[in-house]
């Protein structure tokens, strides 16, 4: 039976290979001898007979090899051989193998990480059923994604395109359970929130329309799965338990399912409560306010409704609302956007940045491939002699190609595995990382198996493709010539070959990443030293909200508490200045208001002069914050609700309203028509983002407009830890029930403002480093290769009396040409690409001479570092010894 015979011979070939080999050897040799005898019988002399027999046979090894190739299982057998051979070769030159694997690991890992983040932030939809139907509504104009409660109520009641419409506000709450009060982050959600989201409760029920019917309609609260798991020990009987939220009793009615993190992709909520109860939770009532636009919206499209249809109806509704409420809603226009990135507020920059970084990652990958190609080409050239010998003794070209292929495969598989490991670890690390802010930010990056598999495949393909680049070299190898040439004759010194082009391309690509890194570094260092309009250094910031301890803003007790606190804190030894405000600049929680000129009588939005940031501050706050008062007086506790309204404005405010900085004593009006006198002018600063243009800002006396939200600024030179403890003691001494949300150096709180620049700088810095590493590897590889190829020629020149300079220019002149042309192209590309960066990194400019100098210097340094070794080798070569050896 043929099959049985085949299997038998396959097994025999595999397991009895030694006997099979011996058999074959004997067979061919006996054939040779018989041929010789035949020739002798024909009358040839012995040695001629032997020669003729050899000629006819064509080489014992060649025949054997041909037989081996025709055997069953020959492929597998020789594959194993090739594998063993490849591993042996790699052990013999570990430098090559390690470099190739390192390059591959760097290039692939960078791409895995960036793509993982891209997937988590941009490509992934929210983790809810039919996520494509979930959208957010945000104003067409203006900076934020924010809407007001009445606006969305109008949309909810009038539309026919959404199956549910909801708003939510992210809030911090004082959650008291089992006798401990902790600050947690949660959402006040309107009645249809969980209809929009469409998830099913893990335990109990979620909030329903009836919970949000009217203030006090229900004291139901829903826990998130992670809060239930970590803060309540996964208590299975949690439903029905009573907790206190901001001192109010609430009943836990349910737990959200695992994997539901709310409708923001980068934040994790612990708690959901009905929005109807906001007055008792926030300390003031904004449900009916059309100007309190601090809410996020989420809507769910009905089945079969397209976005343009929904947008058309939305336009009709908002036009009607604007007509009905000309004073507050003039010009109202909402658009549908993808939810998840603070509405869609940071969607644009995040997508732009990630696209840019993805581009850089692609460049790094390209550079890696170029590098790999160069490496393999150089290695093949190095082994020209070996390859020629192998061909001469009977190896087919295909067999040699297969060797290279197996070697490339081994390298790319190991490199790919390392890359996937590194990528996996980095993504897991990112997922467990909490950005340095008090906000509940969290990156839900999950290393997807499909992503890892894809990356692995890409690395194998890249490795194999570039491992096979020297194919042409092999096919044109003429064993005779190569062996005669002593292995050292190569075109390296004469013609421009593929690997030269690859090196130049790779250096150009690396320059791009290095330039990008320097641009963002420079931007960050500028951002860190820029004038913020206040001095966060040597200042401590304490933040809490008295509403969490049961105070309200209409309550004299809150005002009393804050004043007592200020007095007590000012008496702590070492405190130079102290003051408090409702919120501080760059804290993220700042508000704006329309400013009208003193002549205004009609306060509809189109009549306002401009928008200004507004802060409510105590006397002494300016001093404590380090904001310069340029003219006029500070606020005072004698400015009360009964005295005329006053404010301190910044220079930009004064310029915009009065066309002059001489504003003291002049008046403007707020949106509710009250005349306000300017009593002081302060220096400009940054209020919402570092990258904003000069903005108008006004500081109002907190004694005229009480707030439960408290940010206490204490300026001190004393040791931070002592001071923190002292302040904490004062607060708890005044009221034990006040949960301090944040207490520490002001700089720490500002971390969020610097966060985008820092992330960008870290990301681009890493890519810059990758680029440098790659160019060092590439340059060093090619330089040492060139030198080793031409060492013999160089030593002859030295022996004949050539000077060091001549030797160097002969050996490495071409390298320099490659390096410099690659660098120039790269810098030009980098400068062009860096324009994109200025969108994310504040004050990033590629036209900065510092950046250009730094890039050029870095490249020169790395260039010289990477050719230093080979140069040394050339200069210190001993001609006598070398020539003798070869």
């Amino acid at each position: 039976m043929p099959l049985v015979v085949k299997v038998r011979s396959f097994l025999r070939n595999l397991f009895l290979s030694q006997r099979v080999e011996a058999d074959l050897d004997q067979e061919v040799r006996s054939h040779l001898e018989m041929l010789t005898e035949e020739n002798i019988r024909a009358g040839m002399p012995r040695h001629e007979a032997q020669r003729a027999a050899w000629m006819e046979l064509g080489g014992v090894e060649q025949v054997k090899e041909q037989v081996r190739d025709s055997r069953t299982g020959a492929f597998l057998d020789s594959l194993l051989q090739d594998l063993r051979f490849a591993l042996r070769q790699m052990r013999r030159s570990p430098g090559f193998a390690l470099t190739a694997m390192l390059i591959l690991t760097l290039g692939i890992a960078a791409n895995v990480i960036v793509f993982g983040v891209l997937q988590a932030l941009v490509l992934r939809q929210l983790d809810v059923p039919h996520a494509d139907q979930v959208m957010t509504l945000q104003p067409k104009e203006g900076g934020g994604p924010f809407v007001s409660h009445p606006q969305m109520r109008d949309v909810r009641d009038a539309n026919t395109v959404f199956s549910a419409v909801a708003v939510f506000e992210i809030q911090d709450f004082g959650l008291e359970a089992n006798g401990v009060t902790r600050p947690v982050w949660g959402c006040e959600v309107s009645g249809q929130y969980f209809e929009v989201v469409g998830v099913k409760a893990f335990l109990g029920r979620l909030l329903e329309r009836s919970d949000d019917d009217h203030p006090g309609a229900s004291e139901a609260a829903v826990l998130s799965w992670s809060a239930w798991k970590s803060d309540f020990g996964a208590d299975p009987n949690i439903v029905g338990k009573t907790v206190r939220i901001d001192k109010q009793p609430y009943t836990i009615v349910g737990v959200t399912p695992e994997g539901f993190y709310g409708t923001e992709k980068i934040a994790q909520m612990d708690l959901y409560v009905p929005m109807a109860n906001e007055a008792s939770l926030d300390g003031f009532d904004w449900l009916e306010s059309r100007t309190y636009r601090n809410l996020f919206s989420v809507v769910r499209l009905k089945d079969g409704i397209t976005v343009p249809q929904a947008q058309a109806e939305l336009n009709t509704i908002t036009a009607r609302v604007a007509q009905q409420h000309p004073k507050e809603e003039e010009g109202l226009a909402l658009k549908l956007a993808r939810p998840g990135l603070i509405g869609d507020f940071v969607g644009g920059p995040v997508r732009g940045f990630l696209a840019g970084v993805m581009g850089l990652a692609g460049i790094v990958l390209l550079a890696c491939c170029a590098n790999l190609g160069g490496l393999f080409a150089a290695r093949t050239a190095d082994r020209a002699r070996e390859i020629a010998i192998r061909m001469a003794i009977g190896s087919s070209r295909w067999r040699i190609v297969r060797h290279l292929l197996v070697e490339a495969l081994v390298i790319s598989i190991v490199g790919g595995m390392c890359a996937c490991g590194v990528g996996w670890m980095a993504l897991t690390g990112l997922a467990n990382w909490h950005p340095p802010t008090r906000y509940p930010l969290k990156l839900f990056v999950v290393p997807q198996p499909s992503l890892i598999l894809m990356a692995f495949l890409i690395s194998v393909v890249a490795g194999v493709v570039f491992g096979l680049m020297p194919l042409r070299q092999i096919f044109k190898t003429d064993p005779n010539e190569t062996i005669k040439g002593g292995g050292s004759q190569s075109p390296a010194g004469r013609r421009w070959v593929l690997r030269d082009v690859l090196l130049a391309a790779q250096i150009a690509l690396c320059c791009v990443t290095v330039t990008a890194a320097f641009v963002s570094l420079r931007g960050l260092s500028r951002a860190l030293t820029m004038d913020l309009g206040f001095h966060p250094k040597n200042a401590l910031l304490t933040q809490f909200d008295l509403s969490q301890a049961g105070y309200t803003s209409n309550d004299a007790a809150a005002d009393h508490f804050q004043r007592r606190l200020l007095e007590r804190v000012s008496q702590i030894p070492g405190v130079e200045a102290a003051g408090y405000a409702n919120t501080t600049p760059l804290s993220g929680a700042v508000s704006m208001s329309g400013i009208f000129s003193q002549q205004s009588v009609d306060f509809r939005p189109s009549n306002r002069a401009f928008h200004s940031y507004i802060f409510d501050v105590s006397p002494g706050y300016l001093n404590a914050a380090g904001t310069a008062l340029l003219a006029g007086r500070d606020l005072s506790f004698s400015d009360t609700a009964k005295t005329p309204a006053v404010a301190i404005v910044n220079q930009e405010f004064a310029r915009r309203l009065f066309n002059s900085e001489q504003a003291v004593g002049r008046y403007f009006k707020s949106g509710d028509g009250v005349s306000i006198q300017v009593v002081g002018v302060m220096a400009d600063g940054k209020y919402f983002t570092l990258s904003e243009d000069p903005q108008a800002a006004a500081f109002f006396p907190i004694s005229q407009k009480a707030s439960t939200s408290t940010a206490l600024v204490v300026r001190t030179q004393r040791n931070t830890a002592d001071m923190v403890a002292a302040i904490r003691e004062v607060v708890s001494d005044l009221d034990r029930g006040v949960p301090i949300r944040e207490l520490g150096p002001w700089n720490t709180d500002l971390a969020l403002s610097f966060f985008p620049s820092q992330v960008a700088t870290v990301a681009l810095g890493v890519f810059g480093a990758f680029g440098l590493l790659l160019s060092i590897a590439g340059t060093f590889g090619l330089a040492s290769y060139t030198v080793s190829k031409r060492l013999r020629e160089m030593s002859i020149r030295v022996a004949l009396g050539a000077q060091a300079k001549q030797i160097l220019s002969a050996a490495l002149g071409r390298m320099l040409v490659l390096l410099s042309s690659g660098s120039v192209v790269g810098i030009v590309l980098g400068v062009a690409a860096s324009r994109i960066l200025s969108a994310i990194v504040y004050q990033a400019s590629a036209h900065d001479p510092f950046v250009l100098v730094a890039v050029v210097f870095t490249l020169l340094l790395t260039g010289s570092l990477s050719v230093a070794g080979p140069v040394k080798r050339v200069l210190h070569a001993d001609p006598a010894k070398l020539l003798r050896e070869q």
Partner: protein
Amino acid sequence: MRAEPTSLLQGTLDLLILKSLIAGEQHGLGISRRIQQITGGTFVVKPGSLFPALHRMEEEGWIASFWGESENNRRAKYYRLSKAGLKQLEVETKRWGRVSWAIAQALETS
């Protein structure tokens, strides 16, 4: 003419090897000489083609090998036709008949 391993000629080589073994067991050189003889010197099979073919055919089960003594008392590997080989010879012969008839037809009509 050299037996190049094109598919037609490979089939031809197999056929010639099988045919040469009809007369009885033979070693490699013997097969080679016999083919030369029965084709009137047209086919000279080089060892580089012969041995791979022999080993392949042995693995197919058409021929079997054993070690024996050559005419000069030298140890040599002998091949003989198996039952499957005999059948294969019939198949190959028929195929070759068809092919050569077709080629002849093609050459005549022109």
